[in-house]
């Protein structure tokens, strides 16, 4: 149901670890729950965020939600495509709809996150 190679937060973000860099996004569950996403406020490249700190804002036709960082570190890249095409979060949340890349401070933080089966249990899907 959810990709096995990712880790998940209880706030419905996913992380793909690649060495010291983590790519993060929101899960298909979160995207479905939010409905049509119309705007993503992206963090600034070079800004720092604590684990579970606020990284940005996601606005859909029916709700506004904060985006939390599943791991802490420095934002090294953001998905510029989302500025014009926020709907990528609905269409391809685990791929083209990635949100940001973070240079991870402490890889051990990943261990505190859920794996795919635990996340599936959390969401009931």
């Amino acid at each position, binding site marked *: 149901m959810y990709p096995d190679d990712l880790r998940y937060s209880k706030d419905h973000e996913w992380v793909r670890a690649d060495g010291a860099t983590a790519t993060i996004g929101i899960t298909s569950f979160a995207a479905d729950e939010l409905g049509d996403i119309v*705007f993503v*406020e992206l963090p*600034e490249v070079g800004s720092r965020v604590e684990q579970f700190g606020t990284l940005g*804002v996601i*606005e859909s036709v029916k709700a*506004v939600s*904060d985006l939390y960082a599943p791991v802490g570190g420095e934002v090294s890249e953001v998905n510029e495509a989302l500025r014009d095409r926020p709907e990528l979060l609905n269409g391809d949340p685990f791929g083209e709809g990635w949100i940001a890349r973070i240079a991870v401070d402490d890889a051990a933080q990943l261990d505190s996150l859920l794996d795919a089966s635990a996340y599936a249990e959390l969401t009931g899907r």
Partner: protein
Amino acid sequence: MAYSPHTEADHERMLAAIGVGSVEDLFTDIPEAVRTTRFDLPSPLTEMEVRAELSRIAGRNALPTVSFLGAGAYRHLVPAVVNEVIGRSEFATAYTPYQPEVSQGTLQSIYEFQSLICELTGMEVASASHYDGATATAEAALMACRLTRRDRVAVSSAVNPQTRRVLQTYCSGPGIEVVEVPADLAEGGSGLTPASTAADALDGTVACLVVQQPNFFGGIEPMRELAEAAHAAGAQLVAVVEPTSLAVLAAPGDYGADIVAAEGQPLGIPLSFGGPYVGLMAARMASVRQMPGRLVGATRDAAGRKGYVLTLQAREQHIRREKAASNICTNQALCALAATAYLTAVGPDGLREVAELSMTQARHLAAALESAGVGERRFSAPYFAEVVLRIPDAARRHAALAERGILAGHLLEREYPQLRDTLLLATTELTTDAHVAAVVAGLEAVR
């Protein structure tokens, strides 16, 4: 539905439910000393007697017959159509409706207001109005802090002192530091904010430079250079403007303003003991999600018909609570409607005439005072419709003229100790040659 207040029985039941003996017991936290239970009021009067008494008190108001008082509030002609429009029962509400989409007419009027403000300022988006010009300015500074993620604000000392005090109040809560950029008020000075002085105050920690055009002294600021100084430091330019002046001066959108704030009172709203007024705010579309206040958008319904909605509500407090762009702003829908009716009635040519007549009379006034040897211009810079004159013994003469029903402008030494013996005099299209003659003669007489 019966509309009745609580009965004694209701009181008893409520008190019993919360376990309190009497209504008085609810106030025991308030010290006895300030819990006045007796007021020294006169005995009751009939309605006729009350009217007579209030008329007697109102008769003590000393209404000036000639006024050159401006300093942020200006007496302009309000065409009769303005009050006719805002008095209509469909519109006569002070606030945006809380079930907005059912009130298409109200939303359309606000949309037209926003469109007019965009046209006037040359900006891309305008809000549905704010409480007044000062709070709009303070909100603009906070908006710049959010946009730049910086926490200092630079403001010219030639911005209206009252506006600066409101700005200071707004910034004190979130811990934003307000730094002052001194205008050139020296003898023989311009009375303007030098771009080089502004540049010295700006660095990577300052979110915005707040300057007023025309400034508090009526002077025409070098806005383009000030915008360049702000942008060079990565800061925003907040332009505080006077709306009728935009008919003759460059639009903020043309000289690089990032956020525009204004007191909208000159647009069809009478002087009335300081309010209600209306704040205007406009910005670039790229910043719209950090803009405070309500915003009306035009759209189409399912059948393809044009309709109006409150849009981008995710910025607002009823959706995002503590993360809203502002939790302390309001709007002035009825005054915004007055501004809309005014701008529509006078049109671009009419507004230009208002501005030009106001400017012409200011020059006439300054020349008349100078040639009579009563005073001389204190600053060298070009001015709009308000001018600062050095007049010996200004405070005493100002007071003496007030006794004769002539308000000879605003005494500047109250807020600017270095500007002793100076008066700030404002003119509008309602200023007649006879008014000018009266103030010149009055100042000569009390010499």
